Structures are given as structure tokens and as C-alpha cells.
């Protein structure tokens, strides 16, 4: 099992909070990696919110290949940040030669482009870089999107923290939303792309689960949208479904739960909205999930979301105080970093929990 967490706060936070959140849950993961996504950035990225930020780990060759692609398309570098590396002896980490966090300006021809055109350019570029890096075995691109920074690494979360100097707070690197995972990747190879959280066009997703409908989901999603690639983890499917419901179909968020864990036919037929729900159950049958899962997500509206499988086979708890909400696998994590808080929420199998941008928590019953 992996351990996951999502923190959203009115105050900007440093990723050390994610490390601490995960530390007390370490019995539940295997020390095989640590990854986080920061959104709604502060610190040195505060003034570049509209511009795409590239998060990448690559060899020297990979870095050059990516830079070539970006230059060719017409992107120009605005700002670059490199983590301060502490390469002390004995750390359990499989570090890459370069970690690139780079803010870019859109090509000149995109000066009057619509938001949609810009987004299209970003996804196409990200796919191109990913393909090139994969072919050259020269690195990994994790996100290429405004106001989003991603880091993933293989090794012990504690040592990864030391290596990137993440244990100490630092006002330069902060965000309003941080999602993180310590992982135990029992099913698949330990590869960086398999580490949660996953990011696609404004949507971030991470899961503690085993999606037994992975093959069904993957077979269907592969043909749904060009951005649905990789499938190194069965949890990516959940993110892609969220993206499909919201960004492609433009359906209200509540239909995400109806898609991944549809109600039984008998339950649906007692409801007023049965026509719609039965259509969704049939048309999106291939996006249903099965098996134990807790899924956390961040939407472009800067909301947090939490849903569970239809039998609630995986743990999750949500804690809140006046300026922060935390969703995480075990209450031990909450106790550690937020000892003083309101009553915790343990969502049930039919709920969707939404944390609005102003931190109000909504509990929607499916």
C-alpha cells in the first residue's frame, strides 16, 4: 500500500510539511520513493502564475533534447530554479543528474492565443518531450503547466528530503496546495512515472489503491485522449477519468463518482435522475473502477477532492483547522502535523468530499 496526503492551506507551505505528514505513516510504505506536486505557488514562483512551469529530471543529454524542443517551438526561458543538492554519503536515493524547474514564456505567435490554444500547445509539447526523453532513455518530464511544480524520486523519503534539502522550511519554495505520496509499489516496476501524484492539464491525482479494472480502464482511455498515456500505475486511470469527465465532457464534478463507482441498477431505478445515471453507467462502463481505492485530487479550481471505492476498502481521514485542510491515509499523520483541529471526517463509500478554495468542506452523497 502507499500512503498519500493532500494539504491545502490559506498560508503558503513548504514541502517539508508533506515529508512530515508521510513520516509518521512510514510503516505503511516501503521506503521506495517520494513524490509531490505543488500548486498555487508562492515564493520565487509567485510572480509567474500565468506562465508554464516545466518540471523535469534528466541526464545532460535529456536536458539538451528538451531545451531543443522548447526552443524550436518558440518557448523562451524566463526563470529557472534548481534545488540545492546535499549529496552526502550513504543516502538511499537514485538521483538523476539534472532537476529542471523552469518558467517559460509562450512563443511569440501565441501572444493573442486563447487559453485553449495555449493549453493545447502545452500538452502537445509535454508529450513530445516525454516521447523524446523516453526514446533516448534520458529523463522524465512530470508537468508542464502554469503554477505547478512536480518532483519525483526513487529512494527513501527521508533521504530524498535530505538530498533536496526539503526538511528545512524555505520561503522561496512554497505553495497553497501540496499533494504527496510515499510509495510501496508492489504491483509494477519501481519507475519514476509510476509514482503518484500524477498531473494532467490542471488536474492532479493520487491514490492508495489497486484498481482491478485497470485493464478495462486503460484499454478504453488509450483511445479517448492524446494525453492519456503512460499507464505505469493503475491509479493514473482515475486521474484520466476525472480529466475526461470535467475537461473533455464538461460534466459537473459529481458525475465523476457516478462514473468510477456507479450505483447498482436497483438503486439507480429508485432515483429521479435514473435516465442520466443509467446512460452514464452504460456509456462509461469501461471507466468504472473496482478493488480497494482511495483517490485524492486537485482540480484547476484549486479544490481538493476525495473519493473511495464502492466498498470503502482503503483508509482515509480528513482533518481541518481554521486555515488548513489535510486529507491523508492515516490519522497518525494528522496528529503529527495538525494536533489541534476540528472533528475529523471519515468519508464513506458513497461520498465525494470537496474542499473549496475558501476551505469550506462539502460532503456530497452520490
Amino acid at each position: 500500500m502507499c500512503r498519500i496526503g493532500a494539504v491545502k492551506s490559506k498560508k503558503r507551505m513548504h514541502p517539508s510539511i508533506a515529508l512530515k505528514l508521510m513520516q509518521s505513516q512510514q510503516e505503511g510504505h516501503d521506503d521506495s520513493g517520494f513524490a509531490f506536486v505543488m500548486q498555487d505557488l508562492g515564493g520565487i514562483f509567485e510572480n509567474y502564475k500565468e506562465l508554464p512551469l516545466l518540471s523535469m529530471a534528466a541526464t545532460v543529454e535529456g536536458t539538451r533534447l528538451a531545451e531543443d524542443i522548447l526552443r524550436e517551438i518558440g518557448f523562451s526561458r524566463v526563470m529557472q530554479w534548481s534545488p540545492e543538492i546535499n549529496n552526502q554519503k550513504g543516502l538511499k536515493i537514485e538521483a538523476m543528474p539534472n532537476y529542471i524547474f523552469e518558467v517559460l514564456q509562450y512563443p511569440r505567435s501565441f501572444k493573442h492565443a486563447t487559453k485553449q490554444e495555449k493549453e493545447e500547445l502545452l500538452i502537445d509539447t509535454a508529450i513530445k518531450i516525454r516521447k523524446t526523453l523516453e526514446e533516448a532513455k534520458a529523463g522524465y518530464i512530470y508537468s508542464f503547466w502554469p503554477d505547478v511544480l512536480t518532483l519525483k524520486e526513487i529512494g527513501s523519503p527521508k533521504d530524498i528530503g535530505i538530498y533536496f534539502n526539503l526538511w528545512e522550511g524555505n520561503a522561496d519554495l512554497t505553495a497553497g496546495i501540496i499533494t504527496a505520496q510515499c510509495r510501496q509499489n508492489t504491483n509494477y516496476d519501481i519507475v519514476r512515472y509510476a509514482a503518484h501524484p500524477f498531473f494532467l492539464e490542471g488536474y492532479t491525482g493520487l491514490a492508495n489503491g489497486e484498481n482491478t479494472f485497470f485493464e478495462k480502464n486503460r484499454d478504453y482511455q488509450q483511445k479517448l485522449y492524446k494525453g492519456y498515456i503512460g499507464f505505469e500505475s493503475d491509479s493514473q486511470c482515475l486521474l484520466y477519468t476525472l480529466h475526461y469527465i470535467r475537461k473533455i465532457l464538461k460534466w459537473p464534478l459529481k458525475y465523476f463518482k457516478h462514473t468510477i463507482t456507479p450505483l447498482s441498477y436497483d438503486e439507480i431505478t429508485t432515483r429521479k435522475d435514473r435516465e442520466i445515471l443509467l446512460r452514464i453507467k452504460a456509456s462509461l462502463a469501461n471507466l468504472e473502477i473496482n478493488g480497494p481505492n482511495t483517490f485524492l485530487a486537485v482540480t484547476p479550481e484549486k479544490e481538493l477532492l476525495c473519493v473511495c471505492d464502492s466498498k470503502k476498502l482503503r483508509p482515509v481521514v480528513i482533518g481541518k483547522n481554521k486555515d488548513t485542510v489535510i486529507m491523508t491515509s492515516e490519522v497518525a499523520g494528522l496528529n503529527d502535523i495538525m494536533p489541534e483541529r476540528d472533528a475529523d471526517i471519515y468519508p464513506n463509500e458513497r461520498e465525494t468530499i470537496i474542499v473549496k478554495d475558501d476551505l469550506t468542506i462539502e460532503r456530497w452523497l452520490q
Partner: protein
Amino acid sequence: MASINVNELQKSDLPWIIEYDESKCIQCGKCTAACSFNAISPCVEFRKSNSINSPDRKFEKVLVIKQNISLDNYCRGCGMCSNVCPNGAIKAVRNKDDKYSVAYRAQKADSFKKGGRSNLNTEGRTLDKIKIGRISQMTDPSLDAQRHTFELRTPFGRVLKADKLNFDTCGEVLYETTSLPPVSWIYPIIFGDMSIGAVSWRMWEAVAIATAYLNEVMGIPVRMCTGEGGIPTKLLKSRYAKYMILQIASGHFGWNRILKAMPDMTEDPAGIIIKIGQGAKPGDGGLLQASKVARYVQEIRGVPKADLLSPPTHQGLYSIEESVQKMFLSMNAAFNFKVPVAVKVAASVTSVSVYNNLLRDPYNIVGGFFLDGLAAGTGAAHEISLNHTGHPITSKLRDCYLTAVKQGRQGEIPLFAGGGLGQTGSFAADAFKLICLGANGVFTGSMLLETAGCVGSDTGKCNACNTGLCPAGIAAQNDNLVKRLDVDKVAQNIVNYILATDIELKKLMAPIGCSSLPIGRSDALITVDKHISNRLDIQYAC
């Protein structure tokens, strides 16, 4: 010297030889009465009664049971005679050296016809070489077949891609803006299409009763397909019509009455199946021999007593586009586009192209694809078709599913597979494996016959369904034989069998961690056969 006519039919040419023990026989006559094929007769033997060494020649007459040596009245090995004999004095024994089929053709200059299924069995059973090998443990725990809830329902009807549903939003709520093709949610087992005529009215009624009971009392939404032979008008006008899928085939038998009854129907039927082909004898039309066209069959079908042949093709339909436009559209229109219209074809090398064409039909009016494999049974066929034409179901079903996957269209036209399921005694396992390979559900006729007491086998036992002399009263139309079948008992057996199958399906869903049907979950399957692994794209294990 006695003359031997080697060109006449001999007892040793027959497929079954009767072994009769005169010392046990009490001459009750039950065996001859029980034999519907008139394959045995009482007769008198003239025997020397005193010692063979005695010079006196004394004779006696002894009443014995003798096997008839005839191309028409010959023993089918059905076993009814031994079933009724109080002393076990008679039994039929398989003749390994039988020459019957040669003799039949040599003497009748006609192709040999039979019922049941192919008896060649050259293919072996792919499904038996597949196991459910991905068992959830630890990280994704197995479910508990007894404690957890499972949903065994599949859509039946044309399913549109989500972006074609044309939903609109009003606030946070979706609503429909266009009328969409009808889709119902049914149990993944459909009772196969056996017509009134092919089976006796008692058998047909038993299946209909079981269907209604399963739906109304047990809450298991199975559907029954009428077969090409119509449906009793009373049933059609009743509320039970909603469980019945009406079939139309190239002979259009029974549709005169259906059309007349339509204005008085109180419920829409569960669906329509347009039968194009049949797995047991693809490329061949339907065949109901005159001996089975009983009076009520004539009435329901509106035909005289004669051999009833459905042409191999629907007259006037020459292309898929044309079929879709003419026949499917009119069937859809007949019930106001409120009833799913499906098609049944024989598995064939060309099935994938047919499926593809239907997937691409812009009118979205085909709501199900029934694929019938070569191990399927039939009421009557030329033996040559039964034994030598057709295509196994498993790879063809898989091909159809994968061609849909390739286009991102899996599930749009639900796939139903049939033909010889449960042949080796594990109907639920066969159904489950086909579902994992991509079927939405399965259909079966032979399982129903088995539960009703059919004595036939895949190795030449009985298979006389074409004769109207079915010893179990299943495929018979003769009143005395039909009475052998206890309608209530058969209905009860079918219900019980489905209840058992339901438990067994859950017993297979639970360990792979699925609470809904694992349609297309081929990752759950393994095979110990390398060729099968390659062909079906499932994991090889050894």
C-alpha cells in the same frame, strides 16, 4: 449353406447394439413401449428345447426382445429401455465399428440429417485450457462471495459513447437533450433461441415459466429468446412479454400472429433478435421436419404440415448497409424505437467485419451482437454441416472485442457469446471466461435441455432431435412423448441451475476482486497453452 447378403444393412453396422439377457426378462413389454424409435420389438424365437446331443428334435417358442435392423428404426442408445426395465435385462452398447452413416447414404442417396450437435469433437475445448489465474491477495484483497454485494447485470441495447449522449447541464445537473437508443440492464445469461416446434410446447413453456419466476420471484433478470417460430399470442399480450426477446429469421415464422397481436400488447418485449446465422450449421437455413409440425405448431406459425425450411439468407438483403437500413430499421420502428434490436450470426472468419460494419452504422440501431460458435446445438441439420462447418466461439468473440478496443468502441454494441457452453459440466466457468474475454453475456440452449433431462451427448448418444421422437419429450411433438416431460419439474430445474450458476459466478468474481461483471478483464485469465495465449492475448503460464 446359408446365403449371406453382405450388401444389406447388418446389425453390426448399427451405431448401438442391444444386449439382452433373456434369463432376466419377465416379458413385461416396458422396453418396447418406452422406445420411441421403434428400435426393438418383441418376437418369437424358434429353439431346440432338448439337449443338443439328443437325437430327438423337440422345439419350443420363446418370446424375446430383438433389435430392429433398419435405417429408419434403429437404436440411438438413448437408454430409455434400460431405464424402464425392472430387472436390468436390456441395454444398448456403443458399436465402435459402426457403418451406419455409410449405409444410410449408400441406400438413400440423401444426406444424413440429425439433431443435437457435432459429434466429431476434433477441436478440443479452448475454454477448458483457460484458468482464472489472477487471484487477488493481500494488496487488493479478494472479495467475499457470501458477504459482499455483487452486481450481475449488463447493458443490452446500443450504447453511445459519452460524448455522443448530448447531455446538457443545468446548474450542477445533467439532462438529456435528444432521445437515445433503448438500453436495458439484464442478467448476463440469455435463454437461447429454441423455437416452439424445434422443442415441444412443454419444454418451451417450462423455459418461459422459469424465466418469469427468475425475474419476478428471484429478482434475476434473465431474458428468453423465442426462437424462430413465434410465441403464443396469450403470452405476447401478457405482462410477461417484457421478459421475451422475439426472434425473426429468414422464414419469418410466427410473425403473422405477432403483428396481429401487437396492438393488444401491454408491455414491450425485451428485445428483437434478427437471426442471420446459427453456429451449429452456419450458412444453412432452418429445418423443421414435417414429423415435428404438430397442429399447434401449424397454428402459431401459420403453416401446413410440411418440412419447414428457412432460407439460408434473408431474401432481399444483400449488404450490411441494406440490412441495417431495411430490416433493422423496420424492426426498430415496429416498437417505436423503444426496444433493442440485436443480430445473431454464426461465428465465422467474417464475423469481425460484420461487427465492424455494425459498429460504424451511423444510425446506431443495432443493440446487440450474438455470436454463435460451432459447438452449438440445433434441432435438425444435415450431419455434414454440423460436423464440418463453423468456427469456434472463443477466438471469434475475442477478435470482435479486440477490434472494438482498437477503435475505442468496446461496449457500444454489447457482445453475447454462445455455442456449447457448459459442455464439460462447467457452464458458469465458461460464461465467466467468455465475459473476461470481452463478452457482455452469454446465451444457451443446450444447458436448458440438459436440465430438462436430455439424454443426448457430444459423442453420438441420441441426437435424434430432428425426428420428433425425442425420448425425453423435449424435442418431440408426439403427445405421448411430450407427456414424459414434467413442465413444473423442468422449470424448477432451470431455476435451480441458474441460482447455482449465480453463486458460482460470484465465486469467480470474488477472488479476482470484482463486484461488477469483469467484461474484458482478460488480465484475470491464464492459459497453459502457448497457442491459445498468443491467439487470445492472455498470459501464458506453465
